[in-house]
């Protein structure tokens, strides 16, 4: 099995979409999924704050950049901390994509799955096409869009069968 599950968390940490595609993960009840989404939201915020290099002031950062570029100072500011992007465990791998508006897409795959970035990108495309363009969808509310479900299912099946 390639892709195991997809979870979408809104910017307040609430679970708005949850679907499993294989039996690689334990089945949880809805309440546990809600708790999981909230926990992950908080942990994601903490991991962004834990950056060991964040103590650098801007001047120090410029100096370091200049040293890295061979003494030429190119004005730039440090990348903002991104928070958790990939989590690895013995049985699965979790890729997190945080959109600019704070919605988080969590894609659970098995540890061997390649090109998760591409799959994530496609899932985000489907979300923008079939959820955001749905005039009846209310922002930040649970996603109940049949066409999104259908397209997502057929795409994930395609990914899982291509291996």
């Amino acid at each position: 099995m390639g892709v195991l599950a997809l979870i979408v968390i809104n910017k307040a940490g609430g679970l708005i979409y949850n679907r499993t595609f294989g039996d690689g993960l334990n089945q949880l009840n809805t309440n546990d999924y809600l708790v999981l989404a909230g926990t992950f939201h908080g942990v994601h915020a903490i991991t962004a704050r834990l950056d060991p290099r964040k103590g650098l002031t801007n001047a120090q950062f410029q100096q370091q950049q200049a040293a890295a570029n061979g003494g030429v100072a190119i004005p730039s500011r440090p990348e903002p901390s991104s928070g958790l992007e990939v989590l690895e465990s013995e049985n699965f791998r979790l890729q997190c994509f945080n959109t600019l508006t704070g919605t988080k897409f969590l894609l659970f795959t098995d540890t061997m799955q390649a090109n998760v970035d591409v799959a994530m990108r496609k899932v985000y495309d489907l979300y923008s096409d079939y959820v955001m363009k749905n005039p009846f969808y209310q922002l930040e509310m649970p996603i109940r869009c049949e066409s999104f479900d259908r397209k997502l299912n057929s795409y994930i099946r395609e990914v899982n069968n291509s291996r």
Partner: protein
Amino acid sequence: MQVYSFYIFDRHTECIYSKSWFTPPPPASSSLTSPSTSRPQSQQPAPHASSVTSPPVASLVVAPPSAAALKRSKQKKDDDAKLIFGTVFSLRNMVRKLGGEDDAFIAYRTGQYKLHYYETPTNLRFALLTEPGALSMRNVLHQIYINLWVEYVVKNPLSPVEHKGGEGVRNEMFEMGLDKFIRGLM
């Protein structure tokens, strides 16, 4: 490869050892900064807000960090350790819930750093922060446990069973061995 820091937590969730190998470069004093900021304080016309806390005389000689500053950096270190513990604890529980009881949380990566995790059956937890591109350090943490922790802390007859406040962990052999081992990786 760059290693940033290393933490050990005991089964009572207390941080019993932490070490950082990452030292921020000294404050910029070269021509890269604008001349107005590098001007000596004695030439400033009016007393600045910063000169209230440190008198201008002290700024000319290299003063050792004040007690307050030391306390603040220790506080920050303690807070970081607590945040790291909370993070690995939550993620470990999440992984076990989803992947089954036998699943183990190995590592997570952000754009800025990667945290490697290893837990012994006695709930002793090791966390290592490295640069994001680092390969799996699971065997490294395992080696630290086998070759350093067991050899120099557990087998030390003077070491207590519980390491409250880091007691028994901060011995010379363990610290030296750890430093040598980690510097060998960098």
